[in-house]
Structures are given as structure tokens and as C-alpha cells.
């Protein structure tokens, strides 16, 4: 076999790994999970329970926390109910007791964890329950600590797949929260049932839209990974629910490649991250949907990232024109009918970039939980922790 063909085959192999295969499975997963979750999210809380909600607290750890960040605005836009994202350790150890269990079992605490075994989430829901909050667990494991300590459970059923830094589970977490938000708004008559179904259909439609864009997305992400593989650090920027994808991007770089990565919102970037000295080796990923109220600030940020000669990727549903023609590698993600649906797909490119860089640099996901990292085997770092309620 000629050398050039061997080289191409070897490269192709590098661009086909468990994490990238997770991304490639997302369109089918999206359609399959919608069919599973749509009826469940209708029935998990009764009319009475939905009408009782005065405030909502979304909590979780890691990717689940990102899913909460991705959907907080959707909860408020669709339901009008004040909604906070509270980390599990904040809810479990610090959240003001006087604000728990008020107004007949409020706030509603929605805790997300597919495994349901994280100690901090278990602790958070136990404390919330002890002080009179209503707890809805979103988990695939009803027998887990989260399942046991929840008043109601939205049971996830994510088909098994090759192990890799969470990609499929993140999608399902985001989808389940979006469907809950749509349901709450529908029952509380914030919009009609027809409108609610339109929101739902937009969710299901994202699978097909992503399927169409994936081939081009993979090609661009391969180019980015090749150019960026030697960088010591990466910077992920976004605001509003774009911030969740930026947060998720830094998480995937850390998990998959073991390299430093930062996450920051577009405003704080001007206060902090732009100071980095070695800008030409700071791979910068901006997540920027064109409908964002923060879009003008993102345009400014993109402009000054170029002034600093930063290698730049913009993940967007738009194009270079939406950013004043600024130089960058633009990665197209689906443009949904409703912006709330955007978080379902805009994280896909950051997973691909992380997956490809990990392969190109020969990194094992999560450092293989070996050597100094062996304490984290089987998630022990997050499951075996003292719970204090």
C-alpha cells in the first residue's frame, strides 16, 4: 500500500474513536430519547405539583451542572418561574436554610445525575428534602442515592455505548430539562398546547439538522485539532445559555486531553482572560448563537481576540457575516426555530475537537484512572465522599 494511502488511513483511524463515535450517534439518540422522554415528562409531575411551584433550583455536578446552566433561561422564559442553578455543594452545605421548604414545599429542586451515585448530589437532595423542598430526581438509576431521596423521579433510559467523556448523557440531560420546562409552561397556561407541541417538535427536529451538518463539522474539527494539538491551553467563551456549551467544552478538553482549559463569559473575558501572554498559542473557542441578547458583546470579543492574534473558533448557527466578517474558523451548528433548543447541538463541535486532540496527542480519557489518578477509578473520587446532612 502506498505511503500516502497508509498515512490517510492512519489519520482516519485517529478521527474515529469512542468520543467521536458518541457525537456521531447523537442524531439517532436525539430522536430516540425524545420518543422516550416526551410522554414521561408529561406525567412525572401532576397538575397540582406543577401549579405549586414558586421557585426552581436546578442542581447537579459536572456535565449535569452544565445541563442545568444550558436550560435555566429556558425555564424562566417558558414558565415565568424564577429559576436558579445551584451547585450541589452549595445546595448541600451553604444554601440559606431559611429559603428551603418555604411556601409549601418550595423551591422545587430538580437534581440531575444519570448514575445518581454522586455523593454531593445525594447530600444536596437529602438536605433539600429534610428542609421541606420537593425534589424531582432526573436519573437513570431509581435505586441510586439520588433516586431514593427524590419525591419523584424522571427515569432516564440512555442506551449503553462505548465509554468516553460524557456526551450522550449530556444531551439527554439537556433534553429532559427542556421538556420539563415546556411541560411546566404548558400546564400553567403560559402558551397553548399547540405552541408547546411546536417547541417539542423543534427539539426532535434537531436530530435531523445535526445529521446533515455533521460531515462538514467533523472535517472542520479535524483541521482545528491538527492545528491546535500542540497548544498548552484553551479558552472557552460564551454567555447566556451559550456559556453552558463553553463550560462543557473546557470540561471535555480537561477530561479527554488532560490539558489546561478555561471557561469564561464574554464580559468577564475583557476583565480577565485577554491578559494571557502567549495569545498565539491559546486556542480560543467562542460559542455564539446569533439570537443571543449578548451577541453584540460577543462580536466585540471576537474582534479583540483577533487583535491579540489568538487562534479562533466560533461555533454558531450563523456565519462570518454575523461577526463583521472577522477572521476565524466558523463551525456551523443547527439553527433551530426556537433559540431555547440551541443547547441540544451546540456542544457537539467541542466534543469533536477534544476527541480528536486526545487521539492526536495519544492521551487516554481521564488519564486512564491510573498512577496518581487511580483514586478516581470507577468514579470513586465523587462517590466515596463523606455526606453531611
Amino acid at each position, binding site marked *: 500500500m502506498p505511503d500516502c494511502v497508509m498515512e490517510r488511513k492512519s489519520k482516519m483511524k485517529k478521527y474515529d474513536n469512542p468520543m467521536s463515535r458518541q457525537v456521531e450517534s447523537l442524531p439517532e439518540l436525539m430522536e430516540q430519547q425524545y420518543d422516550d422522554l416526551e410522554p414521561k415528562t408529561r406525567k412525572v409531575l*401532576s397538575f397540582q405539583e406543577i401549579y405549586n411551584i414558586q421557585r426552581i433550583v436546578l442542581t447537579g455536578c459536572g456535565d449535569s451542572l452544565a445541563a442545568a446552566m444550558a436550560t435555566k433561561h429556558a425555564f424562566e422564559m417558558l414558565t415565568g418561574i424564577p429559576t436558579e442553578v445551584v451547585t450541589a455543594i452549595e445546595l448541600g452545605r451553604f444554601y440559606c436554610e431559611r429559603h428551603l421548604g418555604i411556601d409549601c414545599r418550595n423551591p422545587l429542586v430538580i437534581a440531575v445525575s444519570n448514575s445518581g451515585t454522586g455523593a454531593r448530589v445525594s447530600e444536596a437532595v437529602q438536605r433539600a428534602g429534610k428542609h421541606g423542598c420537593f425534589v424531582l430526581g432526573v436519573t437513570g438509576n431509581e435505586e441510586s442515592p439520588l433516586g431514593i431521596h427524590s419525591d419523584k423521579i424522571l427515569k432516564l433510559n440512555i442506551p449503553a455505548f462505548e465509554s468516553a467523556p460524557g456526551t450522550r448523557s449530556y444531551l439527554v440531560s439537556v433534553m429532559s430539562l427542556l421538556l420539563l420546562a415546556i411541560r411546566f409552561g404548558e400546564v400553567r*397556561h403560559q402558551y*397553548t*398546547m399547540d405552541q408547546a407541541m411546536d417547541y417539542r417538535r423543534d427539539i426532535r427536529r434537531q436530530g435531523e439538522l445535526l445529521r446533515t451538518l455533521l460531515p462538514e463539522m467533523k472535517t472542520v474539527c479535524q483541521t482545528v485539532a491538527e492545528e491546535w494539538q500542540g497548544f498548552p491551553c484553551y479558552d472557552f467563551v460564551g454567555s447566556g445559555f451559550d456559556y453552558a456549551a463553553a463550560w462543557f467544552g473546557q470540561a471535555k478538553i480537561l477530561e479527554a486531553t488532560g490539558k489546561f482549559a478555561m471557561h469564561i463569559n464574554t464580559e468577564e473575558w475583557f476583565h480577565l482572560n485577554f491578559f494571557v501572554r502567549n495569545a498565539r498559542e491559546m486556542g480560543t473557542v467562542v460559542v455564539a448563537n446569533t439570537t443571543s441578547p449578548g451577541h453584540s458583546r460577543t462580536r466585540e470579543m471576537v474582534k479583540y481576540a483577533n487583535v491579540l492574534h489568538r487562534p479562533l473558533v466560533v461555533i454558531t448557527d450563523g456565519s462570518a457575516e454575523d461577526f463583521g466578517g472577522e477572521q476565524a474558523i466558523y463551525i456551523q451548528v443547527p439553527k433551530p426555530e426556537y433559540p431555547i433548543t440551541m443547547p441540544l447541538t451546540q456542544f457537539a463541535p467541542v466534543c469533536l475537537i477534544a476527541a480528536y486532540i486526545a487521539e492526536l496527542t495519544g492521551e487516554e480519557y481521564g488519564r486512564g484512572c491510573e498512577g496518581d489518578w487511580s483514586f478516581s477509578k470507577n468514579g470513586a473520587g465523587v462517590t466515596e465522599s463523606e455526606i453531611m446532612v
Partner: protein
Amino acid sequence: MLKHYKIKTKYNDVYDITKEVRQAVEESGVEEGICIVYNPHSTAGITVFSPWDPDGFVDLDEEICRLIPTRVDFKHQHDTPQDAAGHVKSALLGISNSFIVHEGNLLLGGSQGIYFLEFDGPRDREYFVKVFSDK
């Protein structure tokens, strides 16, 4: 003869369809017969009511809602409380009405109008008018 009409409704609203039904009867050419007005929905109704005082419609709405309030303890929880109440309202008030056609006209009293009642909405709705001849 069957005529098909489409309307866009608002939340919990009332629509006067008397003119359309009269016109359907005239266009049918039927001199003596029966006219049926029918809606194919389960959260909307067809009724006869007096058109003269607009406040009467407020009374109608309030009485329907007093009899069948939108509650959160309906057993039917697949959709919304408004929808669940709408099903009961529709079942009790009915989804069709029949009228006599005499001398080519709809036989309606002076204080009678025909109304499409929306118990949910806003929705895209439809109703049908069927005219039969005695012959």
C-alpha cells in the same frame, strides 16, 4: 350539501357563526329541510344564545366556568387543566345543533344566534354545516 369553515380562535372565546350558517342554507337551495351545525373538536361547543346584550356572553362564560371550573385535580392529566375542563364543557354543552329550514331560510327566533364556543384556544378550529332537504 356540506360546507366547511375554518376559524382561528382566541382563549376561551365566543364566535358568532349565524351569518355563515344562514348563507349556507341559502346557497343549498333547500326550501324545506334540516340544517346541522357540527364541530369536530372535543374542547369546543356549538350553542344558541341571545345576541342582544354582550354582557350575556360574560354571564354564559362565568356560569360555564362556575359549573366546570378549571381545576388542577382532574384525572385527565395528559394535556393541561384548561384542556381537561374543556373536554367536560364540550361534552356537556354538545358539539352540534340542528335547525329547521323553512321556505328556504333558517328558522331562527329573533333572539337566537348560533355560536361556536372555544373552551381552550387559541387554536385553529373548523366547523361544518350540512343541509338536508325533506324531499
